């Protein structure tokens, strides 16, 4: 279903609903993708991209990005997500041209740009520190890229005015960056990049310096702007919630490697590895022995229905989100459409909008589960020490590869 939807948006093209702001980009992109017969050209294509930095502790090179294969589609909001030091920034900097790949091929709309300097690439960057020019006014900052491209003055003025309206900075054109709040500086940084109508906009944790409230407001704002201009956004973040709320697709990285690429639902509901399951949201990890293609057995003997994809007798790890589990009285009648596990509540934690139950099932080899139930009216509350049945729909369990 997801694939179908995505294919739909791609065919119609995110370029269909476009403001007049970016008309030039629209036609350019359409012309480029018109050459291709079937699949549209990816906005960014990384093939086997590796980046080594000289000089680790023992003079071994540091491998910041390791053999990355990645296609970023035209017009999508794409996030690079991962813990600190996983190589997100390095990947982004290679696309921008601030670093050159040690190996591999880097294409932007089919054009090999791996060794081009930044000023020759059709991409623009929003820096984490904003990197606004302190000696220039807001308007001068925004006009900088257009001036460097030697556009006529009246066009520069028109486009600067347009983009100032887009990011809602009217009336602040004459100020210096220091005279603006963090959120306003952020908008200037965005405007300064967007005014050039880049084919790809690169953003490195642009909201990192903002406080929570402003951050959430800017998330919505960024998403609105991205949808309005239809430019491909490549967004670096280590905040999984941010990635989930904003992205069309997410790439999860760790240790310079790409672990999984998919839309937010896919990444959240069907994590492929233990790391992805753990890094994004809370998760229950269960060790199980494969019985056949459709069933596996937990340590306490419970048989669960999952598409195992592994030979019988082997051991697999299952992941299931706490909120996909339901609680029921242990002596209630079983619903055979659901898989279930009987256990005892060990701890109840009230979270406000939800309640967490820690349940232990089995005696000799206990299985521990966290169950999260929404704090909705009418929902039954359970107490510490109560015998319960934990139940779930078979489809809500993911089998991990490691």
């Amino acid at each position, binding site marked *: 279903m997801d694939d179908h939807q995505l294919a739909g948006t791609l065919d119609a093209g995110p370029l269909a609903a476009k403001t007049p702001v970016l008309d030039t980009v629209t036609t350019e992109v359409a012309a480029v993708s018109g050459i291709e017969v079937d699949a549209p050209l990816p906005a960014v294509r990384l093939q086997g991209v590796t980046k080594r930095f000289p000089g680790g502790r023992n003079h071994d090179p540091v491998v910041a990005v390791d053999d990355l294969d990645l296609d970023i589609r035209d017009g999508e909001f794409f996030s690079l997500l991962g813990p600190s030091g996983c190589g997100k920034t390095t990947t982004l900097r290679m696309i921008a*041209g*601030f670093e050159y790949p040690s190996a591999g091929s880097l294409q932007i709309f089919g054009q090999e740009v791996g060794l081009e300097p930044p000023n020759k690439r059709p*991409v623009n*960057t929003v*820096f984490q520190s904003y*990197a606004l020019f*302190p000696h220039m006014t807001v308007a001068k900052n925004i006009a900088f890229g257009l001036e*460097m491209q030697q556009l006529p003055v009246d066009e520069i003025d028109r486009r600067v005015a347009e983009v100032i309206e887009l990011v809602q900075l009217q009336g602040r054109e004459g100020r210096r960056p220091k005279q603006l709040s963090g959120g306003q500086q952020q908008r200037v940084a965005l405007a300064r*990049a967007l005014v050039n109508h880049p084919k790809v906009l690169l953003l490195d944790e642009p909201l990192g310096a903002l406080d929570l409230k402003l951050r959430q407001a800017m998330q919505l704002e960024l998403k609105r702007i991205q949808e309005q201009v239809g430019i491909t956004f490549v967004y670096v973040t280590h905040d999984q919630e941010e990635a989930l709320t904003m992205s069309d697709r997410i790439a999860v990285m760790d240790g310079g490697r790409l672990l999984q690429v998919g839309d937010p639902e896919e990444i959240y509901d069907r994590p492929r590895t233990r790391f992805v399951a753990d890094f994004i949201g809370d998760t229950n990890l269960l060790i199980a022995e494969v019985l056949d293609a459709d069933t596996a057995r937990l340590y306490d003997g419970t048989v669960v229905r999952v598409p195992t994809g592994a030979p019988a007798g082997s051991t697999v790890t299952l992941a299931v989100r706490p909120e996909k589990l339901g609680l029921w009285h242990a002596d209630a009648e079983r619903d055979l459409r659901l898989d279930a596990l009987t256990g005892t509540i060990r701890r109840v934690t009230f979270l406000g909008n939800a309640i967490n139950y820690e349940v232990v099932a089995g005696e000799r080899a206990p299985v521990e589960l966290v169950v999260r139930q929404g704090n909705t009216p009418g929902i039954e509350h359970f107490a510490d020490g109560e015998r319960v049945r934990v139940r779930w729909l078979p489809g809500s369990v993911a089998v991990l590869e490691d």
Partner: protein
Amino acid sequence: MSLTDTSGASRPLVADDSVIRPKRGVERLLAGNAWLVFAFLYLPILLLFVLSFNDNRVVGVWTEPSLRWYRAMITDSAVLGALRNSIVVAFISTVVSTILGTAAGLSLERFRYRGQRTYDGLLYLPVIIPDVTMAVMMLLFFVQAFDLLGAMLGVSATFGIGTISLSHIAFNISFVAVVVRARIVGLDPSLEEAAADLYASRWQAFRRVTLPLIAPGVAGGALLALTLSLDEVVITSFVAGPGSTTLPVYVFGLVRRGVTPLINAVSVLMLVGSMLLVLASLLLSRQRNTT
């Protein structure tokens, strides 16, 4: 300063004046010391200033105030020649060393290349080498270079304004580099990346972003170079040719033949010049703080 001094009716309930009291003594001592140092530093200047307006031929004997020696100074062709040389040398060495020193500072902070660490260390050598050593080095270098030039090209070069300027450039580069570098260190490298990202070439990024932002450092370095060049005696006296002496070297020579009131006037001139330069650099740094 006894303990009973302030123990009057208004004595506070929390009796901590005993803690404050000894501190007052220390403060007075420090204040007194400051005045002493101040007097020690500025009395000679005052003396010089006053005596430069003395009409008498003998330095120490006061007769009446006059501008006699200033008049003598501006009509003395040797003084004027030396002053002109000083200004020419200072100008050339400041311009050249500011450009080269800024480039050196940039290359050390913004680029990575083989041998950089060595260069980094060696660049600051002129700051620490004793002036006399530097002077001997330069002298030897010029003698050898002239021999070589004469032997290979048949050109005969001599000591003069050129050699003085080259020597001043040699030590000024280091000082400019130090000052400019301090400014570059505080500069967010992503500003230059942002410029490049916004389609600026290397040169445009330097002209439009880097240079305006390090300008106070460059100007500070240039002022320092100017001051150092105007004050330099030791190295200059080694590499100066006949008839190409600078003002401080000329004064130095005069003193050896006996102190005349003319020296006082020339010294006041140099003092005022130096103070104006320092004032300019202060204004510049204040401007740097407000922007």
